[in-house]
């Protein structure tokens, strides 16, 4: 803002004389008056509002400032009566008072807020030098320069241009070969060819995606408290891919905001909606779910309105907006589009929380197809054997010796089976074991004291599938059946219990707030044998638990459904005891499975009649479960070899497919609840203070939703990209402009409201916005238009005159010169050193980071850095932990990814200097760069130094620069030659090994100069 003030007098001095409301007056009224005389109904003073024309008329007499109350009050002699009041902390400057006077005297012409009016496409204006413009952009830029009496700068040299273009369009520097090719291309469209090549590169998608990830608050962790991992990288890769395929921005918008609501939505379209699940999620024990449900939706409103409309809608959460025409009710009507997700306020502490979808990568998709193809074939093969195998089974049953005991139970994934036929496994506790006749042979008898410790069996956690089954004959309504839990009431672990007659499944980390408990609605009968089974799918939810009584699915009551952390325990598996409870009665045939059971398997397991007896039953009289048991016994053990093989193949492939699906990455996505959640205005923004009930809708100050639009996210998304929307295209092209020129045409890229900056080139902004829509929201075309303008191609050298007149270079009488974006600083070093590993997408990676950063914050596990290739991927793939974001990127002003960030920020600090000088990343890069200098840089020291220089800045050093480089080299070489140690130690930086073929002392000297080069201001600057 301070700089703007420097600029303002200059503009005022040469701008057309007439005062323009939107440019000159609204900013003053907004900043100094609106907080008491603005849109906020409740806090409005003296019933005066100055944010509407009708309201202002009460205080303004057009054409006569002296008769206008507004002017009288701002110039009042008595301080107590002069506006703005002392207490507000605001004052008006002489200049502002003058502007208000002139405005009133000139007729007090009112304008609607500029950004809420549809952009008007003006013909590119005439300019003083028609030879300069290369496209429409330049007409607007030059016309303004003409008005200011400034001249554009000459075009930058080709080396500068290709480096500038390469960073801007791909985020990486050009290679020496690319520079040479451009220098040697004498065709008239040489520049355009470079642009086209860069726009086609896969790197383009990566470059464009980074800023989008900042806006979308994308990260690899949940962001609250424990800040554990989540997995949204498949969404991140969708973004890269969308930019690379040049997906039109309107489609890009609709799919991310409402892809799930599109007719016949594809998996990719649903995946795209991960955009609005990237916000932080709170899984802290004891957090209040309702509170955070509200926060998530607020975040979505804030992010969506900032990214697409440049509006600070979130300011109207607690009260009417102070500056813009949005009421608190408007906020909650908009909020209503985003609060209807079937989500929980308390998210899973670890991993993705529902709703989510499996999101296979292209190669996984292909692999899945292969498995499914094989499965279909195996299924087909097995089915084609139908007659043959039925006949064989009949034959087998007929010939079976029914007097010989034969039984069968699912054995796939069975890890333990305790028959209790006169023996107990493990250790008997609290008394010697006792047996009685059981359901199958004998059973163990429990007297409320003794129990069995079976040992380290069933070590399962919250993400494991498992199942437990047993026959029980309880004599009392409460007791533990099979458990792996601390033997104290309601302590951690899992188990199957009887509780007041009901069968209960417990999975406990901390009772009440981190646990899961379901129980059957129907009781288990006392003194009767009942088969009990539970099976769990590893989903952490009560929905993932099935309980069977005598093979029938039991109706369940969810007591607590709030499992968040692993319940794995060091306790042994116990039978008849656990959580301080004991069993009374008999237990028989306990089975533990390290997989979930299907309902058919659970039913078959509950068939106590052995197979040799079942075959005596006519097949028509067998129950489904009995028939299954006989058939599976036959298929598994007695069928002719080809049938048995076909069966086991089919079974194996089914398991393989299941396992493959379980291993796929997932992505959290948007979904609609079938029953729309009611939305209320929340008084003071508090989750527990609902007020008036509201319906979904758009703030009245913005164009209405079309009549036929659906009143949901899809309708909203389509409305945002309707050609008449005043904001979306402007806000988007303004961000693109910021990426290339360093500052937006509207500097406040996040705020196009009345407190935002008046555009420095309003007609240009509108031209670009309408052009964007006219070309079908073509992102690559828009970038191309910008980078092929003469304005973009100017040299960034500044004359003292220009520096004085336009220190921030808002008028663009010269090219932009500013520090590289945070990720580019590191990526350039990797690229110049040849270390860079280019691979599109995939899970995030963990490159070098000083040890201990995670541990000192949490006391928990520290950052485990990767090895090999993952150390050298582009920085956009670096693992983003919100509580402790990558220091190398944060030091260079990266967005923190906790909330939506659209403004690019650049500081210049000693910590940056320390990083570039001493971080292992840059020291290793220097060494690898030195190797390139020695191998590829020619035979002489000078040529090698020049080559290294050009690797970073794409040009050769001038004589005076070469002299400094050479002196540095000589100095370093001399010191490395004096002793062995320093060179050896310096070269040991980083995981990669120095090339043993190279002289270590020379290499160290080159590495020292390479480090010098990577520290140059020019090296980390886009000139």
């Amino acid at each position: 803002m301070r700089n703007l003030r420097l600029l303002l007098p200059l503009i005022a001095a040469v701008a057309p004389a007439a005062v323009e409301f939107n440019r000159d007056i609204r900013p003053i009224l907004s900043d100094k008056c609106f907080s008491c005389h603005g849109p906020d109904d409740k806090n409005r003073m003296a019933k005066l509002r100055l944010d509407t024309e009708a309201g202002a008329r009460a205080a303004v007499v057009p054409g006569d400032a002296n008769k206008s109350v507004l002017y009288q009050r701002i110039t009042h002699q008595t301080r107590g009566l002069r506006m703005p009041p002392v207490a507000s902390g605001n004052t008006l400057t002489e200049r502002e008072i003058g502007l208000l006077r002139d405005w009133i005297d000139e007729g007090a012409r009112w304008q609607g807020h500029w950004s809420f009016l549809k952009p008007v496409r003006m013909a590119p204006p005439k300019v003083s030098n028609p030879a300069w413009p290369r496209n429409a952009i330049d007409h607007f830029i030059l016309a303004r320069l003409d008005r200011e009496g400034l001249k554009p700068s000459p075009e930058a040299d080709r080396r500068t241009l290709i480096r500038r273009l390469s960073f801007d369009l791909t985020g990486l520097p050009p290679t020496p070969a690319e520079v040479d090719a451009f220098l040697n291309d004498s065709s008239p469209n040489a520049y355009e060819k470079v642009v086209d090549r860069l726009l086609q590169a896969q790197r383009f998608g990566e470059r464009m995606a980074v800023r989008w990830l900042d806006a979308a608050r994308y990260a690899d962790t949940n962001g609250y408290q424990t800040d554990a991992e989540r997995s949204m990288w498949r969404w991140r890769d969708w973004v890269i891919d969308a930019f690379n395929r040049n997906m039109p921005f309107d489609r890009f918008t609709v799919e991310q905001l409402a892809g799930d609501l599109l007719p016949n939505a594809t998996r990719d379209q649903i995946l795209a909606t991960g955009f609005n699940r990237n916000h932080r999620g709170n899984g802290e024990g004891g957090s209040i779910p309702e509170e955070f449900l509200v926060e998530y939706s607020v975040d979505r409103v804030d992010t969506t309105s900032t990214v697409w409309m440049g509006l600070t809608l979130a300011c109207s959460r607690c009260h009417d907006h102070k500056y813009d025409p949005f009421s608190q009710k408007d906020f909650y009507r908009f909020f209503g589009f985003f609060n209807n997700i079937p989500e929980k306020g308390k998210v899973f502490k670890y991993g993705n929380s529902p709703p989510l979808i499996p999101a296979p990568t292209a190669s996984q998709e292909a692999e899945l197809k292969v498995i499914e193809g094989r499965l279909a074939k195996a299924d087909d093969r097995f089915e084609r054997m139908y007659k043959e195998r039925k006949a064989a089974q009949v034959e087998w049953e007929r010939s079976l010796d029914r007097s010989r005991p034969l039984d069968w139970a699912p054995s796939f994934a069975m890890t333990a089976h305790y028959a209790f036929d006169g023996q107990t496994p493990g250790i008997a506790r609290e008394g010697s074991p006792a047996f009685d006749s059981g359901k199958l042979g004998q059973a163990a008898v429990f007297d409320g004291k003794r129990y069995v410790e079976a040992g380290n069996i069933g070590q399962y956690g919250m993400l494991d599938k498992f199942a437990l089954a047993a026959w029980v004959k309880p004599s009392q309504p409460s007791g533990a059946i099979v458990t792996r839990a601390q033997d104290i009431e309601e302590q951690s672990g899992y188990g199957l219990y009887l509780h007041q007659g009901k069968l209960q499944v417990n999975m406990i980390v901390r009772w009440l707030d981190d646990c899961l408990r379901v129980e059957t609605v129907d009781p288990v009968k006392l003194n009767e044998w009942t088969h009990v089974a539970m099976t769990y799918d590893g989903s952490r939810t009560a929905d993932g638990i099935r309980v069977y009584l005598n093979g029938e699915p039991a109706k369940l009551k969810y007591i607590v459904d709030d499992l968040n952390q692993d319940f794995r325990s060091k306790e042994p598996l116990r039978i008849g005891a656990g959580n301080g409870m004991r069993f009374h009665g008999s237990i028989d045939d306990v089975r533990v499975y390290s997989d979930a059971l299907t309902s058919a398997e659970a039913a078959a397991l509950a068939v106590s009649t052995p197979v040799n007896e079942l075959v005596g039953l006519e097949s028509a009289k067998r129950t489904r479960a009995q028939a299954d048991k006989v058939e599976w016994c036959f298929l598994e053990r007695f069928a002719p070899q080809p049938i048995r093989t076909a069966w086991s193949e089919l079974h194996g492939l089914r398991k393989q497919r299941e396992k493959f699906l379980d291993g796929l990455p997932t992505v959290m996505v948007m979904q609609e609840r079938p029953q729309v959640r009611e939305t209320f205005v929340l008084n003071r923004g508090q989750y527990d203070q609902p007020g008036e009930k509201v319906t979904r809708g758009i703030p009245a100050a913005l164009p209405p939703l079309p009549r036929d639009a659906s009143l949901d996210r899809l309708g909203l998304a389509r409305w945002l990209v309707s050609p008449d929307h005043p904001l979306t295209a402007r806000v988007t092209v303004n961000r693109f402009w910021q990426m290339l020129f360093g500052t937006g045409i509207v500097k406040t890229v996040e705020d196009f409201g009345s407190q935002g900056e008046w555009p420095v080139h309003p007609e240009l902004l509108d031209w670009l916005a309408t052009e964007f829509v006219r070309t079908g929201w073509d992102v690559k075309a828009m970038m191309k238009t910008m980078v092929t303008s003469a304005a973009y191609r100017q040299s960034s050298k500044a004359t003292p005159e220009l520096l004085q007149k336009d220190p921030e270079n808002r008028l663009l009488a010269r090219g932009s010169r500013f520090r590289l974006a945070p990720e580019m600083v590191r990526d350039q070093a990797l690229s110049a050193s040849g270390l860079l590993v280019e691979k599109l997408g995939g899970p995030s990676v963990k490159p070098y980071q000083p040890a201990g950063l995670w541990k000192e914050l949490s006391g928990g596990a520290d950052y485990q850095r990767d090895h090999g290739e993952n150390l050298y991927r582009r920085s956009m793939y670096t693992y983003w932990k919100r509580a402790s974001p990558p220091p190398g990127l944060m030091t260079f002003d990266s967005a923190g990814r906790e909330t939506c960030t659209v403004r690019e920020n650049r500081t210049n600090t000693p910590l940056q200097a320390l990083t570039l000088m001493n971080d292992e990343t840059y020291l290793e890069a220097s060494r690898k760069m030195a190797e390139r200098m020695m191998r590829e840089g020619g035979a002489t020291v000078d040529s090698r130094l020049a080559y290294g220089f050009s690797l970073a800045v794409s040009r050769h050093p001038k004589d005076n620069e070469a002299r400094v480089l050479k002196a540095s080299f000589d100095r370093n070489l001399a010191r490395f030659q004096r002793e062995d140690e320093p060179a050896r130690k310096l070269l040991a930086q980083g995981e990669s090994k120095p090339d043993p073929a190279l002289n270590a002392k020379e290499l160290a000297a080159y590495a020292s100069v390479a480090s010098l080069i990577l520290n140059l201001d020019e090296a980390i600057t886009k000139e």
Partner: protein
Amino acid sequence: MNHLSMTRRYFFSRTSASLGVPALAGLLKNDLGAAESGTLTGLPHFAPKAKRVIYLFQSGGPSQLDMFDWKPALSGLRGKELPDSVRQGQRLTGMTATQTSFPVAPTIYKFAQHGNSGAWVSELLPKLAKMADDLTFIKSMHTNAINHDPAVTFFQTGFILAGRPSIGSWLAYGLGSENKDLPAFVVMISQGTGNPADQPLYDRLWGSGFLPTRYQGVKFRSIGDPVLHIKNPEGIGREDRRHFIDELSQLNQIRLDEFGDPEIATRVAQYEMAFRMQSSVPDLIDVSKEPERVFEMYGSESRRPGSFAANCLLARRLAERGVRFIQLFHRGWDQHNKLPKQLPGQCRDMDQACSALITDLKERGLLEDTLVVWGGEFGRTVYCQGKLTEDDYGRDHHPRCFTMWMAGGGIKPGVTVGETDDFSYNIVNEPVEVHDLHATILHCLGVDHSKLTFKFQGRHFRLTDIHGKVVKKVLA
């Protein structure tokens, strides 16, 4: 035109948005001469009583009931249900909201009155108790948040959600630093013996939010480099680094002459500052020249880098060097269960180090212009979390009342503000909210909390948002 002089003027004028130092605003001073203070125009708003703050943040939620807020009437109510008339249906955390019983758990520790002020302090804090007359207690602190993450974030930034600047950043932004080669805002972290699986911290707690990143806190670490990358790699000595920076400056100067971009001059200066920090920071953390009695005073733990005691000693050294905002985060105060097992050790770690720090500051004449603040993000419940047994109890988070203390610059010693009911459940007198505490801290530094603002997203933001009243009673 002489580029350098032009750019130097530009550089000094503090108009460049990108000119910056992470919480190192004060570093500029040396280059700028006495005229430039790194302080915002108009600040301080009035004569400050304190020049700097040492904020001893006790992360996890220390139990006021077992340390400061003596409730003798509770001993007769042991195991009895907390009356509904006390609880008044107030919200509880998800951890105990479904508990069916809320038995009163009186403290098992003895309390006594200390000093002329007669402050009640428990036997867990024998050393602090002796300094009671130097301290000012606020027994009526309360907060809006009930869980760690939002609650700590609220204390640090005045807002429960991420995204706002921390209090130290606000002060670095407003007041700059008094030291030419140390950051204005320094953070140190330690882990107590109490609850080792305690609540984590987050970089955002000392982040600069929407303020320029140069105002963020610089974390001084006990593992590895005290400031990231402050050490030259092996094979590069200090002399070599000096040569390196000279050569770099020559090359940058060539570019500056050609391009005239003042940012290049800034970069040159930043490398000089980096070089100075490379000696000032190690010098700061090198305690080997501290006399034996200092270590005795702070306790043997003070020899172990990264301990709370060692950080307290460093806090004094930072205060001596004029660092504006020194913040220690000490973890381990989250006693949901096993309080009798965890709290004594946790208190011992803190008791000696804190009392040594105050004594030390006093002896050096630093206490009069150093404001010391002690406290956590909330208190703990009078009712027992989990099972109340003869020798065991736990306490859940309690945002409705808890105790903090302050000492030093601007503070009237020996005062107690506020009062809670017989259950230390509700405040009955002189409530102090987080924004009030912030307003009071700023006031001690000569800053009117309603006037320290930053415009972001069209709004003039404050640390205290639209709230905050200075707690006059604690002021000297």
